[in-house]
């Protein structure tokens, strides 16, 4: 007997195929952008901003060595002036979503809380990607009835 303790959550987070009524439907995990820039707590905000913008992003997820989400730098925080670190500028403990959440629920959540973006994490807090509200609304609109 073998146990796969990371389970269905881990499987879906990796984007592997599934079967069942909801298989193939967009979820937080399938819509999240996985190329979101990340940075560490002690990094200079100026350096992080330059790196993020050079990659075409106005957001950056602050993570620790284990890729656990510590905070989020949205455009407002990323643009702050002064000699700041990522830790001092970030929004700590941002709202996160699990990868299996159907995209319609994600859209509702982001609209209700007026979130321009939101990290998707495993139940252990490990970053999977960043949801962009426009992507979510488009995917929710396109989903089959």
């Amino acid at each position, binding site marked *: 007997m*073998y146990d796969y303790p990371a389970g269905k959550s881990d499987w879906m987070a990796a984007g592997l195929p599934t079967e*069942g009524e909801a298989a193939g439907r967009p979820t937080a995990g399938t819509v999240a952008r996985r190329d979101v820039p990340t940075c560490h707590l002690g990094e200079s905000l100026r350096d992080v901003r330059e790196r993020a913008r050079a990659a075409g992003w106005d957001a950056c997820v602050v993570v620790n060595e284990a890729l656990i989400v510590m905070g989020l730098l949205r455009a407002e925080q990323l643009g702050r002036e002064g000699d700041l670190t990522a830790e001092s500028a970030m929004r700590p403990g941002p709202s996160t979503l699990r990868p299996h959440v159907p995209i319609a629920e994600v859209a509702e959540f982001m609209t209700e809380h007026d979130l321009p973006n939101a990290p998707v994490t495993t139940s252990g807090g490990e970053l999977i990607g960043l949801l962009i509200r426009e992507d979510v609304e488009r995917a929710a609109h396109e989903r089959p009835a």
Partner: protein
Amino acid sequence: MPTNIGREGVRRMVAEGAQLVEVLPKEAFDEQHLPGAIHLALRKIEAGARATLDPERPVIVYCWDSA
């Protein structure tokens, strides 16, 4: 005691003929499950396993996650 395995171990063992068993509620299984998995309710797993599973092939059990 079961042996813990990771995602790649699951993929390799399933390709080699292992049986996958999901023990979440039936509704969660019907909604989405790993390819080829069968459903066995946790409280009936012993009886269900005897009736459903091939004793000659390895069995991998999973639920949602370890949290």
